[in-house]
């Protein structure tokens, strides 16, 4: 039991002393804390507000506000899952105390360490969500998985899942195990690679870390994305074939924003549309904005495409729900080696744009560990992305967001 306390009106140490209190000493005893805590169950933490007065100087009084909760990682035995440690889902280990408050009383209680077990945020293989905001889907299990790791298949390959955990798990290893939605995990906690996947069809495994003593409670979750050797080879070949971006120099700069019209129907439905008539596109080399709703550009809502310039190159610009140009990948648009639309604004009936601009983007995201499969002939993903890493960064270097800046 810990009863870390904070002081309201009499928070400075001198005044505390006049109040007969010591910053390092709990306000009440451990036994008293248990009594208060147990009287208010169910509760994870109980907050107590108490008026205090000084026996000698009765004019000095104030309030003590302090919290009471069991020692440990928030669980009965001081062990908890990082999955439930919100915000951040960060695993941690405290050898003697889980109390972070003033005058906390967890020491020397004989209580096991306070541990939040989960995938280590500092591990170079693990990646933690860096693409915001979260886009909820109907799959809550997927929505709440905040880690991913991209690996490349190899014959007989395995991934030691325990090696991905924060070291705090070690004392509890025998009580921990992993399950996976795809492929298999052996008794040593290794994810065993199966067949070499096909290009852009990685084996996407939702791996769950489970704790046996608590009915196999899920302590943390991670996507492991096992990519094809072909995906890795083609992406690196594509990088080598795109040594510079000089071709982007002639691309038109995009508009910093687009005008929107917000209207409400008789039924109260609010719709946002582009007010195209308020834009002067004459002589700009830009086609009018269109609605866009694809996980490939995360939360972007509108898209503009440029006419092809000499060489067939083009520029894509994405805008958010307020009509502002998005400049942060992956929601942002990029330069295209092959413009997908002609100057008549018809889609070209070939696969140049698909092969040179779209599929390298898909491969980069998958190699970074995003648990996404292309759908609708490579026009969307089956779920939102969560992480932008080195491969996607390499892609953006070759297909920059704003190679010629923004229109004044």
């Amino acid at each position, binding site marked *: 039991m810990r009863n870390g306390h904070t002081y309201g009106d009499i928070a400075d140490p001198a005044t505390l002393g006049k109040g007969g209190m010591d910053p390092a000493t709990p306000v009440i005893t451990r036994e008293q804390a248990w009594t208060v805590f147990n009287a208010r169950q169910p509760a994870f933490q109980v907050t107590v507000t108490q008026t205090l007065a000084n026996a000698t100087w009765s004019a000095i009084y104030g309030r003590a506000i302090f919290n009471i909760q069991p020692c440990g990682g928030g669980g009965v035995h001081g062990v908890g899952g990082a999955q439930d440690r919100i915000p951040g889902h960060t695993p941690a280990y405290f050898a003697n105390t889980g109390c972070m408050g003033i005058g906390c009383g967890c020491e020397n209680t004989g209580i096991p360490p306070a541990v939040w077990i989960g995938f280590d945020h500092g591990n170079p293989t693990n990646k933690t969500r860096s693409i915001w905001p979260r886009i909820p889907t109907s799959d809550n299990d997927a929505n709440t998985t905040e880690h991913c790791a991209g690996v490349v298949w190899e014959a007989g390959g395995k991934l030691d899942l325990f090696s991905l955990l924060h070291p705090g798990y070690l004392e509890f290893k025998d009580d921990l195990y992993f399950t996976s939605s795809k492929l298999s995990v052996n008794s040593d906690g290794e994810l065993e690679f199966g*067949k070499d996947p096909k*290009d852009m069809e990685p084996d996407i495994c939702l791996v769950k870390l489970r704790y046996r003593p608590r009915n196999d409670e899920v302590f943390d979750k991670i996507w492991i994305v096992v990519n*094809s050797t072909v995906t890795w080879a083609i992406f690196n070949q594509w990088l080598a074939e795109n040594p510079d971006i000089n071709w982007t120099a002639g691309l038109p700069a995009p508009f910093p924003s687009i005008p929107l019209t917000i209207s409400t129907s008789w039924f109260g439905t609010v719709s946002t549309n582009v007010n195209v008539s308020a834009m002067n596109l004459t002589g700009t080399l830009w086609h009018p904005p269109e609605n866009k709703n694809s996980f490939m550009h995360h939360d972007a809502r509108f898209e503009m495409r440029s006419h092809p310039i000499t060489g067939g190159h083009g520029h894509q610009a994405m805008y958010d729900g307020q009509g502002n140009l998005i400049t942060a990948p992956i929601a942002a648009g990029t330069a295209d080696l092959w413009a997908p639309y002609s100057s008549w604004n018809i889609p070209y009936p*070939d696969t140049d744009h698909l092969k040179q601009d779209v599929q390298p983007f898909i491969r980069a995201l998958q190699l970074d560990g995003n648990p996404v499969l292309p759908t609708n*002939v490579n026009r969307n993903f089956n779920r939102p992305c969560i992480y932008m890493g080195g491969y996607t960064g390499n892609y953006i270097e070759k297909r920059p967001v704003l190679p010629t800046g923004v229109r004044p």
Partner: protein
Amino acid sequence: MKTSPLILTASLAAALSGFGQSNIVYYGINSNALDVVFVDTNLSQKAQSAIVTDLRICLSEWGKTGELRLRDNAGFAGYLYIGTSCPHYPEGIEFPDNIVSNGTAGIALQIPKDLSDAYTNAFKFAAANAKAFAAANTFVAFVSSTNFNSVPPKQISDYILYNKAPAKLYELAFSDITNSLRKQTYYPPSVLGFYHSTEGPASKNLWMFVPSSSNDRKDWAPFPAIWHKGKWKFCIWEDNPQYNLP
């Protein structure tokens, strides 16, 4: 425009008749023979032959990069590895790749029951849309031939469809359209590559994936075509196009 000699010989009709075929497919640059076995032992010989014929159509060009990767797991001898997804098949259907022991005959490509069921349904679908299915190969053969180069601007709309596009647009964009289409090589579709969708001008539209390749057959992709007014036409459907007309 590149042409594929295979188009002249392979046809959906062969897949649909399916008689006279032994259950063997060919893969790899040297056209290695590989037996085919079916998990569904109740499947008729006619259905088996039709499926094998369709597998051959898929493997004839796309399968040239295929290789066997064998291993020693009990009941699972290995797999047929082709690094890209099958451009003949729609999303959600996997080309079979399990290689199993086949008694004294050695090894065989195993067709799972869900795939043979999908084929069985596709054959019924083909029979119900016989005219469109028969026209599919004619369309692919024509757009792959040099005769396609003689199509005048006023007739290009017989081979490609843009939503709500006036005739003038097809003529203006004629060179863009034909130059694009000529960048690819087209191959006969699989019977599995046909599907209905609400996407298109009607409430229910028949589509097919036309397998295509570019970059000397390294880059494969399914290219969509729609059955429109009794003809197959390439189509990238857009609900609300904003054409840039003069």
